[in-house]
């Protein structure tokens, strides 16, 4: 059976051209970019070319790109680096409740270091209200960090509008664009942001390569101290093949983005319209302001991990925000933040499409998904309704 990959928000395969571009840097061009002789020079020039290509994808200057090993590292760097660089001005930070764990847990770390953090609520679509950002900014605010697009519910935030408010107040603004760069056009100038996180494997580049965009003139303290790599802002011998891969992936994405978007939108819309024909299936996230290849739902009366596993048996790979599907056995904070009750959040399921997704695959999916829902509902004691159990509390040891 052919496998159907519908979890592109988790990661993507390497684009074949990316792998070709990377290979020489595992083999003959293995030099350390700091070495002064020829192999070092070749490696250094490759990194700088990758930096230029990566910058071009987001309409930035090459010197504004700091390569990191992951989106999580870039988010840690942004929050801690700005907090420690600007703490003399104030110790207040604003984030939303629908951030990635790498932002939320960095914020919690900073709270333990004596910073105050405001966690902004979102509406039922997961949208931050720019007016709430304005109200939350005080004299001591040094950083606002709002996720660009949610990997769980697909909602795209009004980043340009929020950044205008934040910049008017003279506060540094960071956005986590891990789920947006590669899926929608992202332009640092029109967004008006100071810092931005993005990761290569979200746009068919390698894992282990990501970047923090830092607008020229923004003061930031390093997360990793050591040598003079990345202008002294991120020490450690560069992962040359991965960085080269990120550059190549950025170049291809800039070339192919419009085509990719046009490819996935009708497939996504077909999934959504078919799924919403099923009784008691709810779309999560914004119906229009959402990632082009992103369809996310909660299905009443059944549990997400069971759905995910049953789909996997049918050759379809997907994701869920249910408690049982997480290693921590906790429901997704994003679903709770958009007002989905805990018992309904258990029925979360997320499908994300990519350039390899075909019409035939979506046709098969659209036939299979309702079958799996009715099969699991046959097994469920709640297929006729929740019988008041939704008000239960959960004290059982997880």
């Amino acid at each position, binding site marked *: 059976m052919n496998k159907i990959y519908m979890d592109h928000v988790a990661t993507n395969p390497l684009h074949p051209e990316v792998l070709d571009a990377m290979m020489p840097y595992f083999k003959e061009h293995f030099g350390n970019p700091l070495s002064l002789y020829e192999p070092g020079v070749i490696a250094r020039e490759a990194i700088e070319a990758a930096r230029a290509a990566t910058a071009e994808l987001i309409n930035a200057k090459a010197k504004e790109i700091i390569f990191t090993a992951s989106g999580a590292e870039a988010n840690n760097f942004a929050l801690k680096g700005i907090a420690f660089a600007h703490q003399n001005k104030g110790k207040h930070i604003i984030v939303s409740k629908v951030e990635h764990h790498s932002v939320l847990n960095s914020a919690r770390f900073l709270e333990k270091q004596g910073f105050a953090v405001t966690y902004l609520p979102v509406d039922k679509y997961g949208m931050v209200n720019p007016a709430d950002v304005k109200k939350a900014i005080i004299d001591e605010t040094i950083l606002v960090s709002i996720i660009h697009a949610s990997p769980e519910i697909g909602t795209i935030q009004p980043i340009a509008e929020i950044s205008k408010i934040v910049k008017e107040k003279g506060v540094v603004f960071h956005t986590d664009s891990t789920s947006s760069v590669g899926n929608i056009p992202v332009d640092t100038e029109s967004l008006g942001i100071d810092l931005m996180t993005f990761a290569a494997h979200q746009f068919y580049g390698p894992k282990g390569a990501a970047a923090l965009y830092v607008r020229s003139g923004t003061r930031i303290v390093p997360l990793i101290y050591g040598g003079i790599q990345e202008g002294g802002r991120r020490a450690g011998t560069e992962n040359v093949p991965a960085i080269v891969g990120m550059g190549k992936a950025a170049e291809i994405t800039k070339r192919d983005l419009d085509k990719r978007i046009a490819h996935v939108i009708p497939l996504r819309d077909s999934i959504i319209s078919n799924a919403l024909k099923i009784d008691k299936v709810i779309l999560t996230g914004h119906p229009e302001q959402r990632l082009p290849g992103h369809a996310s739902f909660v299905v009443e009366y059944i549990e997400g991990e069971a759905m995910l596993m*049953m789909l996997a048996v049918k050759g379809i790979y997907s994701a869920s925000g249910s408690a049982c599907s997480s290693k921590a056995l906790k429901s997704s904070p994003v679903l709770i933040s958009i007002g989905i009750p805990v018992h309904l959040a258990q029925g979360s399921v997320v499908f994300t499409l990519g350039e390899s997704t075909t019409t035939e695959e979506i046709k098969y999916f659209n036939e299979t998904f309702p079958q799996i829902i009715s099969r699991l509902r046959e097994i469920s004691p709640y297929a006729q309704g929740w019988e008041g159990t939704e008000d239960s509390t959960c004290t059982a040891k997880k």
Partner: protein
Amino acid sequence: MYSEKVMDHFTNPRNVGEIDDADGIGEEGNPVCGDAMKIFIKVKDDVITDVKFKTFGCASAIAVSSMVTEMAMGMTIEEASKITRESLAEALDGLPPQKMHCSNLGADALHKAIEDYRSRQGK
């Protein structure tokens, strides 16, 4: 992550359903926790002659439910009351450690059904 036996019982669960004139009904868990199970037993001469289940939960919760019904079928009440979480997990060739507590409701639900049966018998 799951054993072949878990996947077998998850994809082809045995004894799914309800028994309208059950002699004992047991319920364990709730949907807020993520797993909930309802088990129905029919008893004749102290022997479980029929058993059915309905479960809301992850793959292992469904597999455990299916396995407990298969094990309890034909057992005496006394024997069935000795089924434990551990013996169930063992019969399924093991469960992932994080699933041992939350989704392993089968034995508890069965014991509640037996309790219900006994109280109806006035025993």
